[in-house]
């Protein structure tokens, strides 16, 4: 693959579309969990909001943030893919995603998930950018683990 090909793969239309028109962007009013992620090297910031229902299912998810095309697209794609999954499924998907963007064996991803996440696979050719792609996912995980929003009722 030539250098231009790897750049075109990194910045393919799906990625640019997600970064320009992010899905699930904004505050989630009834969030049960919230996490904030920050990459001090580049100043990228992201907030992830989740609503986890009584069956441990992510029934709502959104994000807010500023950053590069990779970090924004990754966050947007993540919100699309996690809605409706259980917390355990979300963590499993994250594991597969991390393998994928690091260029490792990602056979732990199901076929459909692999197909949908494939647009992010180009990141593996750019080691300095892996952190951009993983920021939203790590933030999601920390929101689920430590980001419970206390309710007064």
């Amino acid at each position: 693959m030539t250098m231009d090909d790897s750049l075109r793969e990194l910045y393919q239309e799906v990625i640019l579309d997600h970064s320009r028109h992010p899905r699930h962007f904004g505050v989630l009013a009834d969030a049960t969990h919230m996490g904030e992620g920050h990459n001090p090297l580049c100043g990228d910031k992201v907030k992830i909001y989740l609503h986890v229902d009584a069956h441990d299912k992510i029934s709502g998810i959104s994000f807010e943030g500023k950053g590069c095309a990779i970090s924004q697209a990754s966050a947007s794609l993540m919100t699309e893919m996690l809605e409706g999954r259980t917390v355990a499924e979300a963590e499993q998907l994250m594991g597969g995603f991390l393998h994928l963007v690091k260029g490792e064996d990602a056979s732990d991803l199901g076929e459909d998930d692999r197909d949908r996440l494939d647009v992010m696979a180009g990141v593996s050719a750019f080691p300095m950018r892996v952190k951009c792609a993983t920021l939203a996912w790590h933030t999601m995980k920390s929101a689920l683990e430590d980001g419970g929003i206390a309710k007064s009722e």
Partner: protein
Amino acid sequence: MNAPAKIFDVNAVRKDFTILGRQVYGKPLVYLDNAASAQKPDQVLDGMRDFATSEYANVHRGVHYLSATATDRYEEARRKVQKFLNAKYEDEIVFTKGGTEAINLVSYGYLSATIQPGDEIVLTTMEHHSNIVPWHFLRERQGAVLKWVDVEDDGSLDIEKLDAAISAKTKLVAVTHMSNVLGTITPLKEIVARAHAKGVPVLADGCQGSVHTVVDVQALDIDFYVITGHKLYGPTGIGALYGKRALLKTMRPYNGGGEMIAEVTREKITYAPPPARFEAGTPPIIEAVGLAAAIDYLTGIDRIAAQAHEHALLQKARAGLKELNWARVIGDAPGKGSLVAFEADGMHAHDLATILDREGIAVRAGHHCAQVLMERFAVASTTRASFAFYNTTEEVDALLAALRKARDILG
């Protein structure tokens, strides 16, 4: 009629920098990250190697031949820095591990012993974190107040605003000589005159300014001036603090250890006079020799012609960015130094820098350790191209072509 400006022979100097001949991703390296760290000429690298292979030992300690030789070379390096900055006395030059350590030394050694709650330190919004955080320490730990002088929209500094910020409570003015983001060169002589009129000393962060201007600390009458070796085409791990002799004498040491003492007993210690007082432990000896070689190199080229060449590169880049019309340059102060930072419409600096990187072009993307300034200009991150005398007009063309390509890819 004036003599015609001398033509700077860029191809001749490029031969001295071996690394400039290498390729990155199969493309010729275009190194435009000089404000982060400059490349080193063979004269510096060879000089360090020659010293280490024939004259090296610890300094100021042994009675043996090599120790005496190494001490001579180390102290010769100090005199070269003295001459480079035109300091009056060689004991006004303290070797540090870099610019950051030099500023921390002033914060701790000069101010922290005497500063009272409510005392003020005046600084500008274009300072690098290294000239902000050591003063924040004094705010956080001792109740000092940071008084910020904002820069103008074009990046210039209004001397009247700075003057107005200096009050009876001001203990120090800490200001950059040249901004690492805006390129602004500050009117140091005027700043010092205004501050001294109110009895306030001035520290200048010269990490960029010493690279792109000829510095004369006596003419400036400045109290503290800070340089770092690695931006001056020298090695990492070495920098220097210039301080007026009378001020250095009043300062307490920052590190304790060997070489900085006069006498140590079970009950008490007495300190060595400056500069040894501030150079505890084995200093960066080989690096000091490397810094001296870098200064020899810099003073050996025609610096005025080199500056004119750098300025021409800046003008070309500036004009090219204007044509692109989607790049907003941050900092257009008159007489600015040879770097240009910009924000690109709809494109994040890291995406741009990744595409430039694959073209072999090294630029800096991010907040440039100047978050206060980023906030001032309401930008999250910018892309910065910073030029050295060894850069060429063809490299500016390559930068501009790569930016057009990035626009094509990122839309």
